[in-house]
């Protein structure tokens, strides 16, 4: 019975994720997956081994309440943090289950079961602290810049080797819960120290990697408890995290190693602007936009930071009301997580067929009257295309510089996350409109209306 419920849940999870391949079926798919979860949890609650429902009910009520509150009240712009945080929760559950399992059955665990359980606790604890660190950096509780010191990579490697040594020791002394706890403690430290030298904007890659670790930990739990559904769900999770981090690295033209050990984004605050730029008045920008036939809006992290998505759409509507055509060019790593800009624009009610992916956007940009850049920087940096010495070189970018005119909304002349000068701003047909994106857009909307 319970076995059938788990099998059914596994199938529903797969079908649910498969439906995410198509935006029109996605919502139905997620409901399938949620139904699968209900089946799995329901089946478990009927398990004859359960002696008392008190603590289960309490846990469910507390967790469910917190989860629901987070889901309902959190602004969409806080999604990256939320996801990082929840990996910590998931991994925490895995670690606690693993430790308790060991406490109860230390003597009776088979060799393979023990190996799986150890992996579960090690990966889980690393994920808990790593995810909390990522959360702190994304939430800006900690400075986003990489925190480095000499010999750091060596120190981290030593620590990692030490935790692995404890893992081996555990295999040799299967009954020692002390070893298990020590390993968990070291795992927590490794998680913290590994994330320290990674810059704030590389956090999404880290978060996705931790996601795949959490998935592996869940699969290991499945091995340890002989529960196939956990293996399936863990493998799905692991694959998802791995693919997304791979896609991000590829879109940034960087290797995993560079992200994890490169302390990228270190120089963010160091270099100052050394280019001469041209600023434009609000009035002129409004006129330019109002009379443009084809406008492409390029959103970036700044749009998320300023929560400007609604204002973006209002401006687009004004332009469209005057007969102009507005489209959005979404770079795969614009913002701070995969699909970040898509969600924000969707939240503002922009229909998704207006969004152009990289290739199509670059095919259309040369025939565009105005490219309006809303808080994007690195993803439109032409140095990535042209300047071999640039750290961005080779990263595929949006060719906003090929539009007939460019208007950039940002607050200052500071560089973007990569800490690299952007020669785009110095181009003769590029004009800056400095200020918070949301405020500037609000003013632009008001002006365009009066024209």
């Amino acid at each position, binding site marked *: 019975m319970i076995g059938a419920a788990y099998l059914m849940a596994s199938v529903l999870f797969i079908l649910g994720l498969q439906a995410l391949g198509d935006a029109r079926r996605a919502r139905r798919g*997620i409901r399938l997956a949620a139904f699968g979860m209900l089946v799995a949890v329901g089946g*478990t609650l009927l398990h004859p081994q359960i002696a008392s429902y008190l603590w289960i009910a309490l*846990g*469910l009520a507390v967790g469910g309440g917190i989860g*629901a509150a987070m*889901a309902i009240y959190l602004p969409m712009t806080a999604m990256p943090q939320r996801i990082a945080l929840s990996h910590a929760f998931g991994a925490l559950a895995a670690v606690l289950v693993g430790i*308790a399992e060991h406490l109860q059955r230390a003597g009776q665990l088979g060799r393979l079961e023990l190996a799986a359980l150890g992996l579960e606790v090690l990966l889980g604890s690393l994920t808990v602290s790593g995810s909390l660190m990522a959360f702190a950096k994304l939430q800006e509780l900690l400075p986003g810049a990489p925190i480095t010191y000499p010999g750091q990579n060596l120190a981290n490697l030593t620590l990692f080797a030490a935790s692995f040594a404890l893992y081996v020791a555990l295999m040799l002394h299967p009954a020692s819960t002390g070893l298990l706890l020590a390993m968990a403690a070291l795992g927590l430290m490794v998680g913290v120290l590994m994330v320290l030298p990674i810059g704030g904007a590389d956090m999404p890659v880290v978060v996705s990697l931790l996601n795949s670790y959490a998935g592996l930990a869940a699969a290991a739990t499945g091995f340890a408890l002989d529960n196939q559904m956990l293996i399936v769900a863990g493998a*799905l999770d692991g694959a998802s995290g791995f693919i997304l981090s791979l896609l991000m690295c590829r879109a940034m033209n960087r290797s995993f190693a560079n992200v994890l050990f490169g302390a990228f984004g270190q120089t963010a605050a160091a270099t100052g602007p050394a280019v001469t730029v041209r600023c434009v008045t609000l009035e002129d920008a409004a006129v330019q936009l109002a009379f443009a036939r084809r406008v492409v809006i390029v959103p970036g992290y700044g749009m998320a930071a300023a929560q400007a998505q609604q204002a973006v759409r209002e401006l687009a509507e004004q332009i469209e009301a005057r007969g102009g055509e507005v489209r959005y060019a979404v770079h795969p790593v614009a913002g701070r997580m995969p699909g970040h800009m898509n969600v924000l624009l969707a939240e503002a009610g922009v229909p998704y067929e207006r969004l152009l992916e990289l290739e199509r956007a670059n095919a259309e940009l040369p025939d565009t009257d105005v490219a309006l850049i809303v808080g994007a920087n690195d993803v439109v940096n032409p140095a990535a295309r042209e300047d071999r010495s640039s750290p961005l070189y080779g990263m595929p970018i949006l060719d906003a510089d090929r539009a007939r005119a460019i208007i950039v909304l940002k607050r200052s002349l500071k560089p973007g996350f990569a800490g690299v000068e952007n020669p785009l701003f110095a181009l003769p047909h590029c004009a800056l409109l400095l200020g918070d994106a949301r405020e500037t857009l609000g003013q632009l909307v008001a002006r365009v209306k009066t024209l």
Partner: protein
Amino acid sequence: METLYIFILAGFVGWLVIARVPALLHTPLMAATNAISGISLVGSILLAGGGHGAVPTALGAVAVAAASINVVGGFLITDRMLKMFRRP
């Protein structure tokens, strides 16, 4: 051995399914896999309700809470996001 087959096949399925998800839906995807990873709730429930003594029960109750944050929060927020994606 069977378990290894299951893991490898599930990995393939995951790879093939996820690779087809368009960039448009990558954030909902992250939230959804997050919710699914809350499946460790199943193990946590057996622990919290198993009556194995104070420490395991306490650990279990915390685990249940942590996992159900993911399950409830994950599915709700994914649905909330997907609701926003307007049909063309």
